[in-house]
């Protein structure tokens, strides 16, 4: 029916597509748990991707490119948290504006600075033991370090949120900031930390896009993956472990088009249908996760001194 090679390629692409969404979702989980909705995640990923490509091309070093991507995310986080947290702007509008700004800015700078050049990329690494297993070994042989980093990061984020005092603080900021303040913490500081760190992680999603493909930057190359991550976070009920599964499902959905093109029986189905699959899946997921409850204070800026309205 379908050759093994086709299947291997299908899973290889799926995993590659999963990684950016995984990083973005983990970052967004941190941000939302602290009571902030970062609609600007798409822009953060775009800026992360561009910075990675730029530094990669200029320095020739993958390591520097990766660090630069992460760093650009932290900077986005600083700017966004100033707006979301300190000034208390409307988070949806601010995020959308940030996305538009990021598209314009990265496209402009690309034309000015790097054009179609490409930089270094991450090579696949072989996993001892696994590489000799049939099929699985072949799929994994082509995966780079970011896949493993993302998978390793998932429990780290979960532990940080559920098993540390810092996580308790972050979740309190997202549920009932007034109670956190009454307990003697600075709500703003807690949210700054979560937003900045979360944006750093989300930007790594953009970095992964660049370092796992050509090493260059294409305008608007994030193409809605940030929004998909917003959906994955809801589907995952703000739990990193489920977000990993969710990201995998979206990876598979995105590479369906490739699989479909290899199956004769499906030749009649228009290609656009497969392209739409991940987005349709997002909508389904959001509809069917209606029951899931956002952290109670998400999207509501906290103003100190309103003790009566905890």
């Amino acid at each position, binding site marked *: 029916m379908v050759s093994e090679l086709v299947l291997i390629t299908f899973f290889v692409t799926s995993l590659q597509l999963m990684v950016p969404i995984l990083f973005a979702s983990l970052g967004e989980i941190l941000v939302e748990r602290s009571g902030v909705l970062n609609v600007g995640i798409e822009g953060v990923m775009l800026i992360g991707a561009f910075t990675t490509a730029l530094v990669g091309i200029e320095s020739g070093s993958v390591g520097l490119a990766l660090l630069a991507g992460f760093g650009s995310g932290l900077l986005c986080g600083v700017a966004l948290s100033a707006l979301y947290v300190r000034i208390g702007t409307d988070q949806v509008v601010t995020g959308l504006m940030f996305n538009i700004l990021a598209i314009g800015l990265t496209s402009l700078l690309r034309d000015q600075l790097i054009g179609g050049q490409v930089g270094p990329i991450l090579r696949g690494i072989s996993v001892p033991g696994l590489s000799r297993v049939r099929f699985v070994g072949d799929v994994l042989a082509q995966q780079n370090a970011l896949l493993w980093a993302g998978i390793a990061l998932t429990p780290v984020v979960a532990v940080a949120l559920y098993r540390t005092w810092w996580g308790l603080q972050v979740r309190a900021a997202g549920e009932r900031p007034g*109670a956190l303040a*009454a307990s003697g913490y600075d709500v703003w500081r807690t949210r700054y930390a979560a937003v900045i760190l979360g944006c750093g992680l989300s930007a790594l999603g953009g970095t992964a896009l660049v370092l796992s493909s050509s090493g260059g930057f294409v305008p608007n190359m994030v193409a809605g993956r940030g929004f998909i991550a917003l959906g994955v976070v809801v589907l995952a009920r703000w739990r990193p472990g489920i977000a990993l599964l969710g990201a995998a499902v979206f990876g598979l959905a995105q590479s369906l088009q490739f699989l479909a093109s290899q199956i004769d029986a499906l030749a009649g189905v228009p290609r656009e249908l497969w392209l739409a699959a991940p987005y349709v899946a997002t909508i389904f997921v959001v509809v069917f996760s209606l029951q899931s409850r956002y952290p109670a204070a998400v999207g509501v800026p906290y103003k100190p001194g309103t*003790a009566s309205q905890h």
Partner: protein
Amino acid sequence: MEQPNPKPALALRGIWKRFGAVTANASIDLEVHSGEVHIVLGENGAGKSTLMNIAFGHMQPDAGEIEIEGRPTRLTSPADAIARGIGMVHQHFALVPAFTVAENVLLGSRSARAGMLDRKGIVDEVSEVSARFGVPVDPSAVVRDLPVDERQRVEILKALHRDARILILDEPTALLGVRQIAVLLEIIDRLRDDGRAIVLVTHKLGEVMEIADRVSVIRRGRKQVELARGEFDQQVLAKAMTGQLIVDDISRSAGRDEPEVVLECRDLTVPEPSSGPPVRGLNLRVRAGEVLGIAGVEGNGQRALIDGLTGSARCEGAIRLNGEDIANALPRRLRRCGVSIIPEDRQGRGLVPDMTLAENLALVDLLAPPDDAPRFVSWRRVRAEAKELLEAFDVRPPDPDLPASALSGGNQQKVVLARELSRRPRLVVADNPSWGLDVGAIGYVHRRLVAARNDGAAIVLVSHDLDELMKLSDRIIVVYRGEISLESSRADVSLDDIGLAMAGARR
């Protein structure tokens, strides 16, 4: 009791605080020494919580100074206050509903917390604290699932656990039953002997008489008088609070001979309400012009009964309102049938805090409009009607454009009453309608409820406060473990009987 230090542990001097046109605090002085209980009394909206919030760093005063142990201090946030050894029990809970009791208690602990969270460890730690102070809580329960009185205990425990030297309690007894109040007063007594300074806000004059070393009375943002032990009695305090003597004048009209049964429950079972333990196989009847009082130690099914009656939980068996079956009816239909609900949690279910008073008053009619209602809302009319209602129910200030959250607790309750009782209900379900209110407001609520009764409404009244039940009820039932352990007309029952039945003894 040890001799108080010459320097007060906490001193507020000349505190001013304005909110727009409202002056909540006008040059208020308040001192409390170590080993002393200073009680702050005042009507709803007098400015007590505002003063306490300033002392805990939630708000900054417009003018005035704060001294701790004689040293001038600026408290820019609760963190400052906590660092200086102040603990506060908030009137409106400052707890994270999604967290467990243990997580809430330890979130506020004073010792720096970092690194890993030891889930089992914190549960044990909180159990230990809870045992040490004799404040019973279940450390692994989620706060969201707890009834209000238990949440209050969590707040108390949170402050106690911090080992605060200065303890501010903003109406901690409002939700507690007689026994729990006695327990709390004992705890406070011990803390005082321990050399702590305690500021206690309350409405209940009885408590004042019992433990106050010193009482300050605040009225309309100004301090009226400060009295030391021996200088006050209940009459003096009531007069200072309200500016007049309170007369307890509830006139109930004699019941008619055979009034019709308005509410009848047969074999009512509410199997698993989210709010607590179930009730099983309850039979009860309430006639027109009758108040049925329901007593019971919290957690014996009164929540479930209310949830069943008000359509908030699935139930089995029959509930008939004037013969019509309303079991499991949606709240909207209940409203149309003339059921009014006065919920315990006035900031959660009673009102939408961020909406204006006019909107809050109109809400019920908008969601369940009478058949002849016009299709569009005339806000001009709604506001005019709201203004009239607010004045009629003595809400201060009677401004329909104010958000509900800007009112004091007592005034918020008056808004709920205005909405629920002005509609000439056939059945009123009132859940602790007077908790947290001052004597004047309680008297007001009582008069309104009795007036509704006299007008022929059937009233189901659940209350922690036995005095309230004895005063208002025509008949009283006691629930114990989800069943009725006593049913009697008020005239034939004593407080002792009720107490025994609440503990499970059957007559």
